[in-house]
Structures are given as structure tokens and as C-alpha cells.
């Protein structure tokens, strides 16, 4: 299990405001891991550290046994793909252009894609159901379509690890489920190691093999959804009364946020 994406004692501070402290865990291939935690707990920063985009103060990130800090950007991009929370496109690139950009790290100096690149892009679009959007401008897409296109771009990178930063935050329930279904099936069929940041704990718990709970820059817990998502931990970390019970159909933990009216005193 030492060939994955492994963090060892990672610490990072940003001014005096907040930090990540002593983060150690590994993401394996074929594993779908969910990262949860309150706003400002350091989820996005941790994701960026995992992609080698942030220079950490202590510890190291090992990508297939190599320190990520010593990899060139195109080496990292061949192994890790990131689906950012928000991407702005200043120009009207077509969906196909955008997906094809995922081939960047695989090309040399010659600035044109070959037949193989086009085939890989098409295959990624088929897997994400975006083939019929091919000729549309990226600006014209809805939130759910845009997310699927960005996932297609990540697949086109042919990376072994995919990191997604709140891919469902802008989406309605149907599109949320669609994205999780997609991520889950790709994890299996492509043997990817996937980390997904989400605020939808119950939904993530239905799909993720393991979950990582982050609180104020520290790991509050890591393990199966059953272990991590409990009434006490979620209420405590999010400082909000919740009830966690079992979803009767999936047997996965289900989080219900309790209103003041419920009259429950959690403490």
C-alpha cells in the first residue's frame, strides 16, 4: 500500500491566521475518499498540497514513492489531475478544446495534438456523457455540464489520482447524485485514487470508501463513513446540533441538521 499518494506529517501555516498541522494519510489507487470539514478547516489547501501546488513547512508528500516537491509540473500532471471548484475561461474555447487541454502534460514541444490525443479526449467525453456538448462553447454550459466537462478533462490527463474540490457545491440534488455516480464508477472502472471534498456528508458517505474529517487544520478522524460520521463528531466539529442515524436503504450514516425548534440539547 505504499505506492499511492502519501502525506507524512504535513504542516503548513499561512501568516498567523490558520494552518494545517501534522496531516498523515495515504490515498490508494481504486479508492474513493471523501474529505469533509467546516468552512476554513483547510480542505482546499490540503488538496492543493496533495497536488504539489503549495510549498509546505514540514513533512512531505510522496507521489508513487517520490517526493512531489522534486517533480516537475508535467510529471505531476501525468499522475494527478485536479478538478477545481471554479474555473474561469476568458475566451470561448469549445468543450472539445477544453477537454483536449488535459493532454498538455503528455505532449512534447510540438504544439499540436495527435490522433491518439483526440481519441483519448473522445473516450473521456464518452465516459462522462459530454460527447454531445463537444462543439458548444464552455460559457454556454450549465453548472452540472461544466463539472462533467472538467471531469472529462481530468480523465484526459490519464492521471492515476483525481482530486475534486467541491464538485457538487453549485448543483441541485439530481446533478449532485449524477456527479457522485460518475466519480464512483470511474474510481472502479479506471482504478483511480480519488479524493473528493464535499459538504454533503450523507451523500458522500453513500459513495466513499473512507472519509477524512478535517477540523481547524488537523485530522479529526479518518476511516470508514460509519467510523467518522457520528452524531458526536459531526456536532462537535461543525458546532451545530445534528442527528446521525442509518439510512434505512443503504445502511450508510445519514446526517440530519437539527433546528432550534427540535429542542435538542446536544451538549
Amino acid at each position: 500500500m505504499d505506492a499511492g499518494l502519501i502525506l507524512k506529517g504535513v504542516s503548513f501555516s499561512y501568516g498567523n491566521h490558520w494552518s494545517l498541522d501534522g496531516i498523515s494519510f495515504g490515498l490508494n489507487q481504486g479508492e474513493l475518499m471523501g474529505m469533509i470539514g467546516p468552512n476554513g478547516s483547510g480542505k482546499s489547501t490540503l488538496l492543493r498540497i496533495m497536488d504539489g501546488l503549495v510549498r509546505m513547512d514540514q513533512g512531505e508528500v510522496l507521489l508513487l514513492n517520490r517526493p512531489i516537491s522534486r517533480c516537475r509540473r508535467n510529471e505531476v500532471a501525468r499522475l494527478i489531475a485536479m478538478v477545481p471548484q471554479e474555473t474561469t475561461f476568458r475566451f470561448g474555447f469549445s468543450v472539445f478544446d477544453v477537454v483536449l487541454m488535459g493532454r498538455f502534460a503528455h505532449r512534447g514541444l510540438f504544439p499540436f495534438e495527435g490522433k491518439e490525443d483526440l481519441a483519448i479526449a473522445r473516450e473521456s467525453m464518452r465516459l462522462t456523457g459530454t460527447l454531445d456538448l463537444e462543439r458548444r462553447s464552455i460559457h454556454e454550459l450549465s453548472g452540472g455540464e461544466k463539472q462533467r466537462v472538467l471531469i472529462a478533462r481530468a480523465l484526459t490527463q490519464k492521471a492515476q489520482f483525481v482530486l475534486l474540490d467541491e464538485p457538487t457545491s453549485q448543483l441541485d440534488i439530481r446533478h449532485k447524485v449524477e456527479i457522485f455516480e460518475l466519480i464512483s464508477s470511474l474510481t472502479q472502472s479506471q482504478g483511480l485514487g480519488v479524493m473528493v471534498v464535499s459538504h454533503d456528508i450523507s451523500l458522500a458517505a453513500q459513495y466513499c470508501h473512507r472519509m477524512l474529517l478535517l477540523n481547524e487544520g488537523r485530522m479529526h478522524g479518518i476511516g470508514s463513513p460509519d467510523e467518522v460520521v457520528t452524531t458526536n463528531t459531526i456536532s462537535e466539529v461543525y458546532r451545530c446540533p445534528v442527528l446521525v442515524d442509518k439510512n434505512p436503504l443503504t445502511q450508510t450514516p445519514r446526517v440530519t441538521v437539527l433546528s432550534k425548534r427540535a429542542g435538542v440539547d446536544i451538549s
Partner: protein
Amino acid sequence: MALRGTKTQIVSPVRVLSIGIILSIVLVVVALTSLSMGPAKVSMGTILAWCAGTQSVEQTTSMILTKIRLPRILLAGLVGFTLSLGGVVFQALLRNPLAEPFILGISSGAAIGAIGGIMLGLGFTVGVPLLSFISALATILLVMGISSRHGGLESSTLLLTGVIVNAFFTAIIMFFIATVSDSRLHSMLFWLYGDLSQSKYIQLSISLPLVLIVSGLIYLFSRHLNLMVGGEESALQMGVEVEMVKWISFIGISLITGVVVSFSGIIGFVGLIVPHLMRMILGPDHRLLIPASALGGAVFLVAADTVARTIISPSELPVGVITAFLGAPFFIYLLRKRGSQWTQG
């Protein structure tokens, strides 16, 4: 809504080559037409026969064509090529539609040197360009030095620094101008609006190799630029060495812009309008946009300079007056018709 058709085509080497050839043919036609125009009229037929070597012309005509018009046309083409290339690259690097090669202060930096040279009574072949080039380069190094932190160049800091340095130097230039009242004033004003009347072959042989090397290098970054307009972080995630691309591009473009400006003076608008025009017509892919803008810039400036030297013949206008006067209305027409293809957020 957005333009359909051309821009959704995948950019292949064949497509780039064919657009390049079309624009090159247009450039040659415009250049030959320009060669025939001027106070001494030479018909197109004579020009073509003369070029083919099948007909000789009078010695004075031959002198006018080879010693005066041809170097000027060639330099105009090279200047237009360079400024427009600089514009398209700066717009991508700074992710700003208002960016052009002068925005980081090269123009005012070059102007300080040139105005100083003119005040000192230096010649237009060596003295003024040399002083201008040195001060342009010093300015861009100053701007980049101020803006860099921990080896990184941040776009908005660069832009703001450039604008402020420009304002400061413009004040100095105005101070110089205010103290001069003789014929040097005319030279200064012409230089500030772009003047190609001093074109010499020696200027071409200095700038041409440099421009070719830098534009070749920049072209290798065309895919990098495609990714970088989507944000530097996302470009990093997909494998672009963003800081390297930025440093090499900024320095390369500044170098060639500094060289051509030292010969031509400040010709505004070319670096802004031509890249936008090409983006409206051909779409946002830099593999196509870079060569098309550069060649389009050459066509545009050769045409504009022809108008500048013939419209009030035997007097001349600064070419910068023509680029803005003809370019602005045409640009606005296209902007209304097609939109800028530039969306925010």
C-alpha cells in the same frame, strides 16, 4: 451569441499553415501596392516587372524604390508584426483585454531615451535608437523587478506598476518637451506618434533576426498560453511551468518591442486592435492566434504607413495617427457585430 463555425474547429498544423499562407499573400499584395504609391507614381505593372527582373526602371525611380520605399515597407511590416505579437501574448499572460506591448511601460521608457537623444541632437540612425532601446530595457527591468516577489510575477501587480511607471515617465517627457521650442519639437512629436520615415536596412538586419528567434520561441509556448488564459493555478495543475513561461515571454517580448520601438517611435493601437480582430475572426487558440496576429499586424501597419506617407503628400503624418484614425472605427464596428470574444469571470 457566440460565434459558431470556425472557432470550434480543431487547430491543426494544416489550418495554421493555410491561414499563415493566406495572410502572407495579403501581406505581399499590400506591400507591392505600397511600393507603387508615393509622390513618384510607379504603376503596379512596372513594379511587378521590375520585381521579376524583366524590366528595368530609371535610376532615380530605382533609387526611390530600393533606398526609400522598400526599407520603410519592410520595417513597417516588422514593427507591425512585433507589436501585434506582443499584444496577443501580453493579453494572454496578463489575462486582460486592455493589455498591449506598451502597457508595462516600454513605450514611455523608450520615449525618455529617444526624447533625450533628440534634445542632445543625436542622429536617428544610431544615437536616438540606441539611447531609446537602453532606456526601454532599463524600464522593463525596473517594472519587473518591482513586481517580482520570491521569483514570481503577479499579473495585477505588474499591470499597476507598469501604469504608474508610465505616468511618471510621461511627466518627465512632458517636462522635456515643454523646454524645447525649435525644430526638435517636431521630431519629438513625430517620434511620440510613430515615425517610419527614418527606415534603413541596417535597422532591419539588427531587428529581424531577434524578432524571428523570439517569435519562434514564443510559438512553442502557444499551448501553454491557451492553458494560462484559464488561470495560472489551473495551468499549473495541468502541467505548465507557469513562472518560466511568464519570465521568458515578458523578457522576450520586451526585448523585441524595445528594439523596434527604438527605430519606429511609439505606434499605438496596433498591439491592441489586431490581436482582438484576429480573436474575433479565428477564435481563442494561440497556436493560430499568434501567427495570425503577427502577420495581420504587419499587413495593418504597412497599409497604415502607406496612407500616412501619401495622404497629405508631399507632407507626412505620423503613422500612429492613421492606425488610431482608421483602426478605431473599424474595431468598434466589429466589436458591435461580433462581441469581443472576451468574457469575464
